[in-house]
C-alpha cells in the first residue's frame, strides 16, 4: 500500500517540479450568473485532444504543442463557443470561458457538444439532471429530486408514498447521498414522501447507479451527488413559489469576489389545521409542518483559491393530541449540514479540493400517556476530505484523495423500566487513487482502488474499481465497469418496509460483524446514431454479501450484532433508456427488466426469496411539449410489476395464559405479487407576469385516471375468516401553484 501511494506522490512531485509543457486551463461558467459548469467539453479539434470540466467547472489540457489552435467549448443547452489560442511563446494559457444558455434552441452545434462529452466518460449507469428538468416533471405538490430519479431505469421507489430509492436491487440505505460533498443521512420530509432537497436550491444532480469510481465509497449501491446553486455573481434577484403544500423563497446575488445564495421553504398544513381548529377534540388532526433552508457563500481569493461555505438545515415537526389530550405524540426529525470547502490550484495541472464538514441527523419521537415513551436516534458525522486532480498528460487524469470521518451514533429508548440505549463512536478513514487513461481514440479506461478502515471492525478493506470504454464509432460506444464496495453504516427500517423513513434507525457495524460488501459487473451500450436522441442499454449483475436485515422482534439487546439477520443478495437486469433532449417535444422512455434476490439462513427456511421491492418490469415515459413561448404541457406515465407480499397459507388459534389469539400462517416470503402499478400525471404551465413580475402558474393532476394502486395487503387476523384488504395508494389529486421572480 505504501508503495502505491509513494508512486502517486512521486508522480505529483514530478508534475510540480519537472519542466512544464504548455497547458491550457481555466474555469467554464454560465455567462448569465457566473455559475460553474461541470461536464462541459473543451476540445482542440486540430490536435484531437480535450478535457471535460470537473464538478467545479475546472479543466486543464496539458502538453499542448506550440502553435495556433482553435478551441471549442460545448455543453448541452449552451451555445458552443470557439476561440483561438496561440502557444508559440511557450507559455501556459489560462482561459476562463463563459457560456451562454440556449436551452430551448435546436442547434446542431449543441448536439455535437454533448456527443463529444459523452464520448469521453467511462462511467456507466450515470444520470445527470438539471433542476429545470426536474421542475418540468408533473408531480404532487413539489418538484422533487428523488421522485424524478424514480422515473429512471434501475431506480425504484420503496413505495409511492416514499421517496426512498432502491437502486439496482439495493435497499434504500445503500445509497451515498451527498449535498455539496457532505453526507445527508435521512434526506426525507413528510415521512419520506418528499426528499429533503429543495429543487429551487439545486443546480444539478448526478446519480451513479453502479460501477462508480474509487473516489466514492461507504455504500453498496449508488452515489447521488446533489450540487446546490452557487449564487448569481452578476445580478441580485430572487424567486418565490406558492403551492398548495408550501411556500418557497430564494435569493441570490454577488458578494465581494463571489456570490451568495439563500433558499427556504415551509409547509403550512399546521397553520390550516390550527386556524380551522381541527387540532383538538375527538377527531383531532395532527399539526405538522416541515421547513428547510439552504445557504451558500462563495468567495474567490485570487486566481487560485476559492472558498465556499455551504449550510443546510431542515426539520419536520408533528404534534398530535388524541383522546381529549389523554395522549400526545410529538415527532421531530431533521438534518443539519455545514461544510467549508476550499478549492486550490497548486498549478494549472494540479487541482485540489478540501472539505471540512459536519452532518447531523436526529429523529425524536415521544408518546406521552401518563408515562412517557420516547425514542431518539442521532448521527453526527465530522468529516475531513481532500481530493487532488492531476492533469498528468493529455492521456492521463489521475486523482487521489482521503476521507476521514468520526461518527457519534446514539439510540435511546425510554419507557417503563431501565432506558435502553447505545452509543457508538466509530471512526472511518478511506484513501483512494484513480487514473483515467485515454489509450487512443477508441479505448478509454479508468482504474482505481479504495482502501477503507473502520476502527470498530479493525479491518482494512480494499475496493478496486475498473471502468473501460470502447468507442465503436463517433456515435456509439460500449462500456464495462466493475468494482468492490463496502458499507459500515446501516439504516434499520423500524417500520414494515413501507417507507416511513423517520423510524429508520442508523447503526454502525461493530467488531462482531463484517462490513456489508458488494461487487458488480456492468455492461453498457450507448448511441446517438439517431439525431437528437440518445439511447442507452445497460445490463448489470450485482452480488451482495453480509447484508443486514433487522430482526422483527421485541428485543432489549444492546449488542448491535444481535439486532440483525445476516444474509446475502444478488441482483441483475437490463435497462433501456431513450432520451430526446432537444426540440419542442422532449422526453424519455425508460424500461427496466430486473431480478433481485435475498438469502438469509434465518428467514424463509434459508430459501432464496425476492424482496418486497423486487419488480420484474418497470416502464416510465416522460414528455414535455412546448406549445409556444408561453404554454408547456408535460406528462409522466409509470407502469411497474406489483411489489411482492407474503400470502397467508393457513389459519389457526392458540390459547395461552387465558388469552386466545387468532393467527395466520405466513407462506414463503413475498411469494405473491400485488396488482401491477400504473399511473399518469399531467401538468400545464403558462409563462406570464404577476403585477409586472415575470413568473408562471401551473396546474397538475396526479394519477389522472384515478387508478387505485395497492400499497400493501393487510391481513386482519382477528377476523374469522382472516380478512385480507388492499390498502390503496393515492387517488387523483389536482394541485396548482405559481412561481414569480423579483
Amino acid at each position, binding site marked *: 500500500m505504501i508503495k502505491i501511494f509513494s508512486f502517486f506522490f512521486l508522480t505529483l512531485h514530478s508534475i510540480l517540479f519537472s519542466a512544464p509543457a504548455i497547458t491550457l486551463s481555466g474555469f467554464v461558467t454560465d455567462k448569465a450568473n457566473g455559475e460553474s459548469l461541470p461536464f462541459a467539453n473543451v476540445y482542440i479539434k486540430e490536435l484531437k485532444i480535450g478535457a471535460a470540466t470537473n464538478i467545479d467547472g475546472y479543466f486543464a489540457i496539458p502538453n499542448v504543442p506550440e502553435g495556433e489552435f482553435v478551441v471549442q467549448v460545448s455543453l448541452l443547452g449552451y451555445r458552443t463557443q470557439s476561440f483561438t489560442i496561440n502557444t508559440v511563446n511557450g507559455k501556459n494559457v489560462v482561459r476562463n470561458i463563459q457560456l451562454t444558455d440556449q436551452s430551448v434552441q435546436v442547434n446542431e452545434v449543441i448536439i455535437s457538444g454533448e456527443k463529444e462529452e459523452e464520448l469521453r466518460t467511462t462511467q456507466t449507469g450515470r444520470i445527470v439532471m438539471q433542476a429545470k428538468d426536474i421542475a418540468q416533471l408533473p408531480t404532487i405538490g413539489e418538484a422533487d429530486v428523488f421522485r424524478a430519479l424514480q422515473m429512471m431505469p434501475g431506480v425504484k421507489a420503496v413505495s409511492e408514498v416514499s421517496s426512498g430509492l432502491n437502486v439496482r436491487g439495493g435497499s434504500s440505505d445503500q445509497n451515498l447521498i451527498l449535498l455539496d460533498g457532505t453526507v445527508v443521512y435521512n434526506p426525507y420530509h413528510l415521512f419520506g414522501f418528499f426528499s429533503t432537497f429543495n429543487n429551487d436550491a439545486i443546480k444539478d444532480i448526478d446519480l451513479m447507479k453502479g460501477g462508480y469510481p474509487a473516489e466514492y465509497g461507504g455504500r453498496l449501491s449508488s452515489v447521488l451527488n446533489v450540487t446546490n446553486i452557487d449564487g448569481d455573481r452578476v445580478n441580485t434577484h430572487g424567486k418565490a413559489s406558492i403551492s398548495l403544500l408550501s411556500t418557497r423563497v430564494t435569493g441570490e446575488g454577488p458578494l465581494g469576489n463571489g456570490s451568495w445564495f439563500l433558499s427556504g421553504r415551509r409547509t403550512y398544513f399546521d397553520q390550516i389545521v390550527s386556524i380551522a381548529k381541527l387540532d383538538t377534540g375527538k377527531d383531532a388532526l395532527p399539526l405538522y409542518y416541515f421547513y428547510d433552508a439552504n445557504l451558500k457563500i462563495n468567495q474567490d481569493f485570487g486566481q487560485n483559491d476559492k472558498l465556499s461555505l455551504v449550510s443546510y438545515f431542515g426539520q419536520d415537526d408533528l404534534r398530535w393530541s388524541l383522546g381529549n389530550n*389523554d395522549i400526545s405524540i410529538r415527532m421531530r426529525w431533521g438534518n443539519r449540514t455545514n461544510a467549508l470547502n476550499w478549492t486550490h490550484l497548486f498549478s494549472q495541472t494540479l487541482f485540489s479540493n478540501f472539505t471540512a464538514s459536519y452532518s447531523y441527523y436526529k429523529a425524536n419521537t415521544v408518546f406521552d400517556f401518563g408515562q412517557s415513551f420516547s425514542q431518539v436516534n442521532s448521527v453526527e458525522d465530522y468529516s475531513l476530505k481532500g481530493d487532488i486532480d492531476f492533469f498528468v498528460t493529455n492521456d492521463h487524469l489521475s486523482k487521489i484523495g482521503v476521507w476521514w470521518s468520526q461518527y457519534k451514533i446514539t439510540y435511546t429508548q425510554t419507557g417503563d423500566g431501565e432506558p435502553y440505549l447505545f452509543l457508538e463512536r466509530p471512526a472511518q478513514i478511506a484513501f483512494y487513487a484513480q487514473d483515467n487513461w485515454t489509450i487512443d481514440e477508441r479505448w478509454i479506461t479508468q482504474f482505481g482502488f479504495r482502501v477503507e478502515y473502520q476502527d470498530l471492525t479493525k479491518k482494512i478493506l480494499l475496493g478496486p474499481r475498473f471502468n473501460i470504454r470502447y468507442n465503436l464509432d463517433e456515435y456509439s460506444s460500449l462500456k464495462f465497469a466493475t468494482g468492490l464496495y463496502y458499507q459500515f453504516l446501516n439504516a434499520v427500517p423500524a417500520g414494515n418496509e413501507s417507507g416511513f423513513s423517520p423510524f429508520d434507525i442508523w447503526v454502525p457495524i461493530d467488531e462482531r460483524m463484517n462490513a456489508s460488501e458488494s461487487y458488480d459487473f456492468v455492461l453498457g451500450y450507448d448511441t446517438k446514431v439517431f439525431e437528437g436522441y440518445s439511447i442507452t442499454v445497460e445490463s448489470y449483475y450485482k452480488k451482495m454479501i453480509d447484508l443486514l436485515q433487522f430482526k422483527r422482534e421485541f428485543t432489549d439487546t444492546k449488542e448491535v450484532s444481535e439486532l440483525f439477520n445476516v444474509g446475502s443478495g444478488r441482483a441483475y437486469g437490463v435497462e*433501456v433508456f431513450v432520451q430526446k433532449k432537444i426540440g419542442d417535444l422532449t422526453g424519455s422512455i425508460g424500461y427496466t427488466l430486473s431480478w433481485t434476490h435475498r438469502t438469509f439462513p434465518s428467514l424463509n427456511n434459508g430459501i432464496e426469496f425476492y424482496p418486497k421491492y423486487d419488480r420484474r418490469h418497470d416502464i416510465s415515459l416522460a414528455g414535455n411539449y412546448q406549445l409556444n413561448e408561453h404554454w408547456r404541457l408535460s406528462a409522466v406515465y409509470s407502469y411497474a410489476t406489483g411489489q411482492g407480499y407474503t400470502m397467508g397459507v393457513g389459519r389457526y388459534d392458540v390459547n395461552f395464559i387465558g388469552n386466545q389469539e387468532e393467527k395466520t400462517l405466513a407462506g414463503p416470503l413475498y411469494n405473491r405479487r400485488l396488482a401491477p402499478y400504473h399511473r399518469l400525471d399531467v401538468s400545464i404551465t403558462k409563462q406570464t407576469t404577476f403585477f409586472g413580475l415575470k413568473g408562471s402558474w401551473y396546474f397538475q393532476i396526479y394519477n389522472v385516471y384515478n387508478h387505485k394502486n395497492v400499497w400493501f395487503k393487510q391481513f386482519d387476523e382477528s377476523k374469522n375468516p382472516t380478512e385480507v384488504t388492499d390498502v390503496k395508494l393515492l387517488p387523483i389529486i389536482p394541485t396548482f401553484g405559481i412561481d414569480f421572480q423579483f
Partner: protein
Amino acid sequence: MKLFLTLSAFTILIIGCNEPSSPSDYQKEVVVDGILVAENPIDSIDLHWTGEIDKFYDPASYAITNATVIITGVGFSFEDSLVHHSGIPGRYVTSDTTKKIVPTRTYALTITLPDGKMITGMTTVPDTFSIIASTLKNNDTVKYDTKAPLNTFEWSDSKFQGTYLPTLASLDDNAALIPKFFDRDTINNPKPSKIGYRIGLPKNQTNTILPWLFFNYYGSILCDIYAADDNFTDYLIQQNGGGELNQTRYRLNGAIGVFGSVARAHGTIKIYLTP
C-alpha cells in the same frame, strides 16, 4: 441498428414474463398449543390442523383427536400420557392431576399422529417467583387518571426465564379494557375485551408501571406476572408486520405453535374512573 434494438426489446420482454411461481395457498400443518405451568399439573395440550384463511375457522372441525401425546422428564423420572378430552375436540389432558410440573426441570413432548408422523418439542420450566412490591395493595383502589402512573408492580427474579410477561385481566363482569387511544365515549360505553399483556420487557427487568400504552382497565384487576421460558418468549417477541404478514419461528419439530412453560405470580388492584 434498428433491428438490433427491436430484437433486444423483444427478447427482454419474453424473458421478463418469467414471474415468481405462486404455490398453493393452503398449507396443512399440525398446530401444537401447550404451556406448562410450574407447580401445577399439566393443563392441556391442544392439537389442530391449520385451516384455509378464506374459510371460517372452527377449531373443533380441525381437531386432531386420535394422536398419542406423551410428556416425559429429561434427566429425571416423569411420564404422563395425556388423554383426549371427550368434550373438547383436539384437547389432551393429564390422566393424573397429582403429577406437578417441577420448576427448573426440562420436559419433552412427543406426539405421534395416526399416520406415524412424529412431533417433538422440549421446554425448561422457569423457577417460581413472587410479587414483592406493589404501590397498591390487594383490593386497594385508585382513581383512574390518564396523566399519572397508577401502580408499580415489582417482583423477584426467576431462573430460566426468557422474559417476564405481565398481564392484566378484569375481574368484574361489567368492567372492560380501555385502550388508551379511545376517547371518553369508549370509557363511558366500554366493550368487554380480552386480557391485555405487555410484551417486550427487557429480559431482566422485574417491574412494570401501569398504565401501559394500549391496555388499561378499570374496576378490579388481576395482574399476573409470568416468567416465560425461552420457547414461549421466542414466540411472543416476534412482531407482526403492521397488517402485513411476517413468518413466525416455531420451536417444534414437525409442527407449528408453542410448547413452552411459565411460572406465575399475581396480585390484584382496583381502579375507578374519574368522573
